[in-house]
C-alpha cells in the first residue's frame, strides 16, 4: 500500500491498485464519526458508442443508458441494495455525469458490511424485462421534473449548443423516447464493458483504519473472478468546432435567464500542468467577473447582473468549458457586457494585478475548506484527469501560480474558444 503525506493539508492518502485493476484510495480522517465511500466507473452519458469487451463490432446504445444503468444496479433478484445498506445503517445513493457513474454510501457503523455491500451490488448486475420497464416510469418522471426546471434546461441547453454534434448534446438522463428503447441486454453489455474493476476506482474517507479497510476490500475482490482487463474502445464522432451560437427557449418563467457557454478548443496540458491550467482559468475568471472585480460592481450597479450571477469551470474527459449564468431583466445587455469583458480579457487582467494576491488567497482557503467535507473530497477526487496529481496537490499549485500564468492560460483558452448564448424567455 502506498502512503503519501501532504503536510500543507495535514492529510495522509493511502492507495493500492488491486490485482484485478481496481484502484483503491483510503483517507483516514481523525475525529470523524462516519465513513463515506464512493465507487466510480469511468463511464458516463457520452459513452454511448463502443466496441463491447471481447467483441469486435461497435455498438451504439440509446441516450441515457449510463444513468438508466445506475438506477437499475440497486435492484436484485431477491432484494434491493438500498435495504441492505439500511440494514447496516448505511445511507446510499448514486449519480451519473457525462463521463462517470458513481455509487456511494455513508455510514457511522458496520464499515466492513457496508463496503462489501457496495462492492457486491455494483459488480453483480441483475436486469429483467419487467424491472427495466418499471424503471422507465420513474426515470420518465425524473426527466419531466428537469424539463420544468429552467436552470436545468439552461445548463443542458448550453452544453448542447457548445457540442451539437457530440453525445454531450444529449441530456445525461436521455429522453422519454430514448430510454424507452433500453433493453436488459443493453444494460448487461454496458455493465460488462465498463464496470470491469480495471475501469473503476474506490475512494473511502472518514473513520477508517487503512490496512484493515484494504484487507476487507482485497478479500472481497479475491473471491470474485473477472475477465482479463482489456482496453476500452470508445467511439466518438469526429471532433468539429461547430457550435450553435445563439438559442432561445420559451418557458413559463417569471424572469428571463441567460447562460453564456465558452468551449475550449485548445489542447490541454497533461498531468499536474492540467491542474495548473484549471486553477489558472479559475483565478482568471475570478479576476474578471468575481465579486472583487470592478466590472462585477459596475454591472451589478447598473442592474445588468444580480446576485443570481455565477460561473463554473468544468474540465472533464474530452471537453472543457466555462458556463456563466444569471437572471437578467435585459438579456441583450447581459450578453453584450459579458462578451465585451471576455473580448478585453487580457487588458482587464493586466489591470487586475493588484487583486491577484487576494484571489489567490481566496482559492487557497476555498480548497482547504473543502477538506472539511468527506463528500467533497471523495466526489472531487479524480485519479485519471491529472495524471499522478490530484486535488491533494491543488493548494501547492495555486500557491505557485503567478499573474503571468493566469494571463497566458486565459489567452490560450479564450484565443480559440467557441462562445454560445442560451436564453430562457418568459412565455407560454
Amino acid at each position, binding site marked *: 500500500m502506498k502512503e503519501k503525506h501532504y503536510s500543507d*493539508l*495535514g492529510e495522509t492518502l493511502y492507495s493500492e491498485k488491486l490485482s484485478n485493476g481496481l484502484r483503491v484510495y483510503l483517507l483516514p480522517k*481523525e*475525529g*470523524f*464519526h*462516519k465513513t463515506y465511500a464512493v465507487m466510480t466507473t469511468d463511464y458516463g452519458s457520452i459513452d454511448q458508442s463502443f466496441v463491447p469487451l471481447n467483441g469486435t463490432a461497435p455498438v451504439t446504445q440509446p441516450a441515457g443508458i449510463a444513468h438508466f444503468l445506475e438506477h437499475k444496479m440497486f435492484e436484485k433478484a431477491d432484494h*434491493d441494495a*438500498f*435495504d441492505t445498506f*439500511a*440494514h*447496516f*445503517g*448505511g*445511507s*446510499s445513493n448514486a449519480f451519473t455525469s457525462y463521463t462517470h457513474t458513481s455509487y456511494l454510501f*455513508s*455510514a*457511522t*457503523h458496520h464499515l466492513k458490511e457496508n463496503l462489501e455491500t457496495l462492492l457486491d451490488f455494483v459488480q453483480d448486475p441483475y436486469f429483467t424485462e419487467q424491472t427495466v420497464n*418499471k*424503471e*422507465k*416510469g*420513474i426515470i420518465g*418522471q*425524473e426527466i*419531466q*421534473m428537469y*424539463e*420544468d*426546471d429552467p436552470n436545468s434546461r439552461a445548463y443542458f441547453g448550453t452544453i448542447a449548443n457548445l457540442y451539437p454534434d457530440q453525445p454531450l448534446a444529449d441530456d445525461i438522463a436521455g429522453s422519454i423516447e430514448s430510454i424507452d428503447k433500453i433493453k436488459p441486454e443493453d444494460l448487461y453489455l454496458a455493465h460488462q464493458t465498463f464496470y470491469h474493476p480495471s475501469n473503476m476506482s474506490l475512494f473511502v474517507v472518514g473513520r477508517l483504519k487503512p490496512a484493515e479497510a484494504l484487507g476487507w476490500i482485497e478479500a472481497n475482490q479475491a473471491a470474485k473472478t473477472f475477465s482479463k482487463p482489456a482496453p476500452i474502445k470508445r467511439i466518438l464522432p469526429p471532433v468539429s468546432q461547430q457550435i450553435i451560437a445563439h438559442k432561445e427557449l420559451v418557458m*413559463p*418563467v*417569471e*424572469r428571463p435567464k441567460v447562460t453564456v457557454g465558452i468551449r475550449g478548443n485548445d489542447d490541454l496540458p497533461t498531468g499536474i500542468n492540467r491542474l495548473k491550467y484549471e486553477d489558472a482559468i479559475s483565478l482568471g475568471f475570478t479576476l474578471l467577473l468575481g*465579486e*472583487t472585480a*470592478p466590472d*462585477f*460592481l459596475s454591472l451589478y*450597479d447598473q*442592474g445588468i447582473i*444580480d*446576485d*443570481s450571477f455565477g460561473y463554473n469551470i468544468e474540465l472533464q474527459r474530452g471537453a472543457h468549458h466555462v458556463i456563466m449564468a444569471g437572471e437578467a*431583466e435585459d438579456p441583450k445587455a447581459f450578453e453584450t457586457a459579458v462578451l465585451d469583458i471576455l473580448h478585453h480579457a487580457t487588458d482587464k487582467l493586466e489591470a487586475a494585478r493588484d*487583486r491577484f*494576491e*487576494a484571489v489567490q*488567497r*481566496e482559492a*487557497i*482557503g476555498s480548497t*482547504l*475548506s473543502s*477538506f*472539511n467535507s468527506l463528500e467533497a473530497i471523495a466526489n472531487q477526487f479524480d485519479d485519471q484527469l491529472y495524471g499522478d496529481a490530484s486535488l491533494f496537490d491543488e493548494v501547492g499549485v495555486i500557491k505557485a501560480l503567478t499573474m503571468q500564468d493566469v494571463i497566458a492560460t486565459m489567452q490560450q483558452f479564450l484565443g480559440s474558444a467557441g462562445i454560445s448564448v442560451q436564453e430562457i424567455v418568459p412565455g*407560454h
Partner: protein
Amino acid sequence: MPKQLAKGVWLNVIPTTQFKTISMTVDFIAPGNVQELSNRILLAQLLETSSAEYSTQTKLAQKLSMMYGASYGVNVFRYGLQEGLRFSSTIINDHFIGGESLLSEMIAFLRSVIYRPLVNDGAFESVTFARQKQNLMAYLKSLNDDKQYYAEQQLSQLYFKNEPFFATSLYGDAETINGIGAETLYATYQQLLATNQVQITVAGDVSEADLVADLAKWQLEDRQIQSSEIIYRRPVSEMVAKTEGQPLQQSKLNIAYKLPVYYREADFYKALVFNGLFGGTPISMLFKNVREKNSLAYYASSRFDGFTGTLLVQTGIDQSNEAAVKTIIAQQLDAIIKGQFSDEVFDQVIASLINGRESRLDSQRALVNQAMLDQLLNSSVSATDWVNQIKQVTREDVSAIAKRVQLQAVYFLKGEDAK
C-alpha cells in the same frame, strides 16, 4: 457550557480540532410575525452586501478574499414561533496558512458589518437600499420558477391560512417588503440590535477565553427577553383542498397533516421513527410504494416539523395519477396504523435515523446550529442520548403515532399541456 456575556446574550463554544476551519454565527432572535420576518429578509439582503466600512460588494469581497476566502453571509431562520437574523462567517484555521491570526480579524470584521451599517441621515443609504430592495423583489419573483418550492409554499398557505406568520415563506412577504422604507428599516434594526436575544456560537480550534476577550468590544448590553416560547400548537381545522393548473410536464401533489407531537416533548422520538417509516427515508413506505413498486414518481417523501406539529408529504407525479397516488399514500398511513410493516424495515429505519444523527457530528454547521438551538430551548440531548431514545421506540409506538395523524390540507399543482 454556554456562557452568559450579558443578560439575554449567550456565547456557545464548541472546541474541536476536527475541522480545518473555525465557524462563527451571531444570531439576533425574537418572536416572529410577518412584518418582522419581512424586515429581517430585507436586512439580510442589505447587510450581506454593504456596510459603512465596506460600502460596496467589491470592497467587502476584497476583504474576505484577503482573509483566505473567509465566508460571510446573513440569513434568516425560523424555529417555530421564534425567528432569527443570522450573521455567519467561516475562516481557515491559523496553522494551515502560516500562523496568521484570522480569528480576531474575523470577529472585528463581524462587529464592523453588524454595528456599522451603511447609513446616511438616520436611514440606510438610499441608493444601496433601493437596489437591494429591487434585487430582493426580483429574487422573490424567480423563486416561483422552482415548482417544488412553489407547491410547498402554496400548501403552507392552505394549511396555515389562519396563521400568516407560518404561511409566509422564509423569504418574506413581497407586499410587506415593498412597503418598507430605508428610515423605518434602520430604526427597526437599531431596535433589533438592542432588544433581541443574542446567541453567539463558535465551533473550531478556539478557546472561550480568547473569544470573550475579542467580544468585549461589542455592544452587548443587558436586554429583556420578550418570550422564548418556540413551539406552536396549531388548532385542528377543517380539511381544505386546492387544485391549480400550470403549463408543466410534471404535477406536484403536496399534503399537510397535523401530528400534535412536539420537539423534545413526549412521543417526539416515536414521531421521528414514524416519519422515517412513512416517508422520511429512501427505505420508507412512500418511497417503496409510490416510486419503486408502482413507478408513479421520481420523488415521494415526508417531513416532520416538531416545532409546529406538522407532517408534510410531497410528490412529483403525472397529472393523470393524482387519485392513484392519493390512495397509495392513504394506504401507507393505514398500514402503519395496522402494524402492516416488516420487522426488517422497522429496524432499517431505526438504523438509518441513527446514522443520520451521528453523521451530523461531522458537520461544523450542524454542530453550531444544534448548540444554538439547545441554548434557545434551554435543554440539550447528546447524540448518545438521542440514539438511545430512538432505539427504545417500538412498532406499537409507531402505530399509535400514526393514529394521531390528521389530514388537513391537500394542494395539487396540475401540469397542463405546455406545448
